[in-house]
């Protein structure tokens, strides 16, 4: 590493303080590599100079780039397919039983990255509606801490590899339009189901309404226990009794909240709010 350790530690502390993601010293080489990319992108000579700018707080754009580099935007359409089946076959019917007057299901894709999760939810609803006109509509709210990935989600434009990751060909045909030689854009009928907002889950949530289902998958695994408890508590306040919180398939609620009970359905695991 050519950057003095003190600067890398400063950046690691800065990232942890702002978004709770912890960089261990063994991963500083990766952090340095990513910081060097930002230097090139912004025309700053060294990582040390970059720190001077960030610590002076004068360039919010650089701050955003740094927080963006720390987030893992790995995602694909219908990632963990079982949870989308659980949504259509279990969660939605159960919500309708509990709240029979409800015509629209409100869903939050928290830390929704480049939108594949939210669009997969929208496709699930559209496919169900094709089979059963009585199936409810959905409103989907997508948030992320990164302006860059949120813009990609809003654009709904994916390349030829993106649209093959997890996406059945019949959904590609039904919900996308080809754009140029190798890009595909989500049709506007589906895009219109989504609303977007930049949110840092560690800060107090802005007024975003209430939800029937919140997806927050593989986000809290990078956080300290205190942060996990705080985020789950804030999300719980936005769910009615009988609403659902969906975490990553390997994430547990043990020791984090007593507001939820765990439900296993085939290969899907999710949490129902009980108090």
């Amino acid at each position: 590493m050519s950057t003095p350790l003190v600067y890398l530690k400063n950046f690691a502390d800065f990232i942890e303080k702002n978004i709770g993601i912890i960089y261990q010293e063994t991963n500083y080489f990766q952090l340095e590599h990513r910081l060097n990319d930002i230097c090139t992108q912004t025309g700053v000579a060294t990582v040390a100079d970059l720190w001077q700018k960030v610590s002076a707080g004068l360039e919010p754009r650089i701050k955003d780039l740094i927080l963006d580099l720390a987030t893992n935007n790995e995602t694909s359409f219908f990632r963990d397919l079982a949870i989308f089946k659980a949504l259509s076959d279990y969660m939605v019917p159960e919500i309708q039983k509990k709240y029979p007057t409800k015509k629209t299901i409100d869903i939050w894709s928290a830390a929704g990255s480049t939108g594949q999760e939210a669009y997969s939810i929208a496709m699930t609803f559209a496919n169900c509606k094709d089979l059963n006109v009585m199936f409810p509509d959905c409103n989907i709210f997508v948030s992320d801490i990164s302006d860059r990935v949120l813009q990609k989600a809003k654009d709904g434009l994916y390349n030829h590899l993106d649209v093959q990751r997890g996406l059945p060909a019949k959904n590609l045909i039904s919900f996308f339009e080809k754009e140029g030689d190798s890009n595909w854009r989500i049709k506007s009928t589906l895009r219109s189901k989504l609303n977007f907002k930049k949110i840092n889950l560690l800060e107090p949530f802005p007024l975003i309404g209430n939800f029937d289902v919140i997806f927050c998958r593989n986000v809290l695994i990078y956080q300290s226990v205190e942060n996990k408890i705080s985020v789950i508590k804030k999300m719980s306040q936005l769910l009615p009794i009988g609403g659902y919180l969906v975490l990553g398939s390997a994430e547990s609620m043990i020791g984090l909240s007593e507001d939820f009970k765990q439900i296993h359905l085939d290969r899907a695991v999710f949490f129902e709010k009980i108090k």
Partner: protein
Amino acid sequence: MKLKVLCIDDSKSVHAFLKQCLEPKLESLTSAFNGEEGLKVIAQNKNFDVIFLDWEMPVKTGPETFQELKKNGNKIPVIMLTSKNNMEDVAHMLGLGVSEYIMKPFTQDIIFEKIDMVLG
């Protein structure tokens, strides 16, 4: 479960890439280099979990081969491989019973995800 795969494609590099991608889950990969050869293989051995079928091939194209497979009562899931991106044609083949569709070039993740889709 280890997979028994039939690949019908006129490009040797596709066979090699598929073999390399599937290696951890592969029991056997049988190769045919055009539709006619593929039909002969299936006439003698129907013990495959999945068939990868190229769209554009000499002698007999992928769609023609699929139609014959269908006529012969094929029950093995067929994933079509193609660099052809005419969605109307693809939709037509899916309507006829092709299980999935992969656009070239593709990655190992895509292969495994599509196999999961067709085998459940």
